[in-house]
């Protein structure tokens, strides 16, 4: 009989190559010092790869809310909201979020990944067609597969390509859902929403925007890309996560659709998993309040992002996109050199993400930074300095070799 894990031999080889290069993907944080500092391998390390955009993970009001919820509601919910019922704080969180977004309805999921599984599968069925951007996050692909809908992939950020595919498809007799992301997690670029809205007006599909990396980050109200573009009314459905700007765990779907509440009953990733734990729910609610009352966090994130973006570009490094974004990815030559540089950066005191194919578009090897409002200017400058020493020198050597 075949061993089920035999097919993972290529993965094992890759894990061994990473280990031989000197580390393992996902190092252990021995102690967290702040939203932007941790002890890794005994060293004080700047965290520049944790998507902690708003820096709320050590916010006193959030910690206090979490502790109070633990004391009042216990450690876990021990089941789904359909089976066990909701806690008052689940509904409070949904109301807080709906208010923040200016939308009528909000459904909270247990993780961000499940929010996409639950929304795609809750909205679309086998007779429908989902058009998804080629660079979509894995949770979107998996949610689409779970839905049973027909899946059509269009070229990344290309509204004309979507238009072509919708025209070619014509009327299928089912619904059409188009899925975009506010900020794409690997390269940091945004969807050109106004262009897609023009296509929406022509074809009349329903639009879902995944604001995982842009919720709390973009727009005058921090609601995401649709808010920044002044097109909130065109997003039929918004998805987001609590694991980035909110500093907790969980996710959500929101909409003004009058039947949106039915998604709770058409979505197995909502129905058949434990609801978010009391501490997570309470910290998420507290964090949304922080985001609402402290809009200057977005200003600090923007200025930190601009500082790192221009600093890295000034070193002659090629970045993932041409606009300032809290996701700043440096393109590298190949996997072995990226691994070496990533290890050297970590040893020198900065943690960034290493992103390799097939998790990246276009087979890119990336050293991906995510900026926080909580980074100090000195920390940003130190990151630039380390990239100058470790990456810029190496890239120039590779280019002249």
């Amino acid at each position, binding site marked *: 009989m075949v061993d089920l894990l035999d097919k993972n031999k290529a993965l094992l080889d890759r894990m061994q190559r990473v280990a031989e290069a000197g580390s393992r993907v996902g190092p252990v944080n021995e102690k967290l010092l702040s939203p932007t500092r941790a002890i890794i391998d005994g060293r004080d390390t700047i965290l520049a790869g944790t998507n902690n955009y708003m820096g709320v993970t050590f916010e006193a009001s959030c910690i206090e809310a979490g502790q109070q919820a633990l004391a009042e509601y216990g450690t876990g919910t021990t089941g789904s909201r359909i089976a066990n019922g909701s806690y008052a704080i689940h509904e409070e969180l949904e109301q807080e979020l709906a208010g923040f977004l200016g939308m009528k309805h909000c459904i909270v999921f247990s993780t961000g990944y499940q929010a996409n599984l639950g929304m795609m599968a809750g909205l679309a069925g086998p007779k429908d*067609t989902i058009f998804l951007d080629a660079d979509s996050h894995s949770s979107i692909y998996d949610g689409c597969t779970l839905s049973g809908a*027909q*899946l*059509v*992939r269009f070229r990344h950020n290309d509204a004309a390509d979507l238009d072509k595919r919708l025209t*070619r*498809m014509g009327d299928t007799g089912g619904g059409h859902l188009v899925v975009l992301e506010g900020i794409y997690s690997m390269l940091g670029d945004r969807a050109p929403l106004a262009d897609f809205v023009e296509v929406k007006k022509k074809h009349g599909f329903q639009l879902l925007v995944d604001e995982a990396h842009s919720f709390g980050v973009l727009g005058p109200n921090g609601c995401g890309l649709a808010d920044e573009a002044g097109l909130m009314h065109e997003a039929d459905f918004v998805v987001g996560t609590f694991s980035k700007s909110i500093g907790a765990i969980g996710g959500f779907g929101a909409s003004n659709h009058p039947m949106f509440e039915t998604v709770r009953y058409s979505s197995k990733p909502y129905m058949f998993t434990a609801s978010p734990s009391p501490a997570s729910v309470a910290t998420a609610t507290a964090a949304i309040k922080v985001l609402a009352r402290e809009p200057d966090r977005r200003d600090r994130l923007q200025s930190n992002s601009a500082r790192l973006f221009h600093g890295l570009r000034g070193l002659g490094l090629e970045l993932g996109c041409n606009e300032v974004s809290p996701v700043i990815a440096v393109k590298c030559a190949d996997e072995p050199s990226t691994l070496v540089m990533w290890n050297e950066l970590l040893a020198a005191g900065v943690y960034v993400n290493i992103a390799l194919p*097939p998790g990246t578009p276009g087979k890119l090897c990336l050293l991906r930074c995510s900026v926080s409002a909580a980074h100090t200017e000195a920390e940003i400058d130190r990151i630039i300095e380390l990239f100058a020493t470790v990456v810029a020198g190496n890239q120039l050597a590779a280019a002249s070799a």
Partner: protein
Amino acid sequence: MTDDEQEIFDKLSELLQPFNEKQVELKPQTEIAVDLAIDSVSVMDFVMEVEDHFDMDIPLNVLSDTHTMKDMISVVQARKKT
């Protein structure tokens, strides 16, 4: 192979070349992902090239049953008719 199949095979081979880094010789029975050792994203990118060349949509759902070049020829033939 019929003339039509040969023509589609030749075109698919040409579209697959940029993804065929190991320069594996392509035959009708070649398993695209396995024999060329290319990842799932590359397979989807290849399919997008096929869609554009033949001006057709090939929903991702059909890919789970599409492994070989011959399977891909059948997909293109079937969708040309619709």
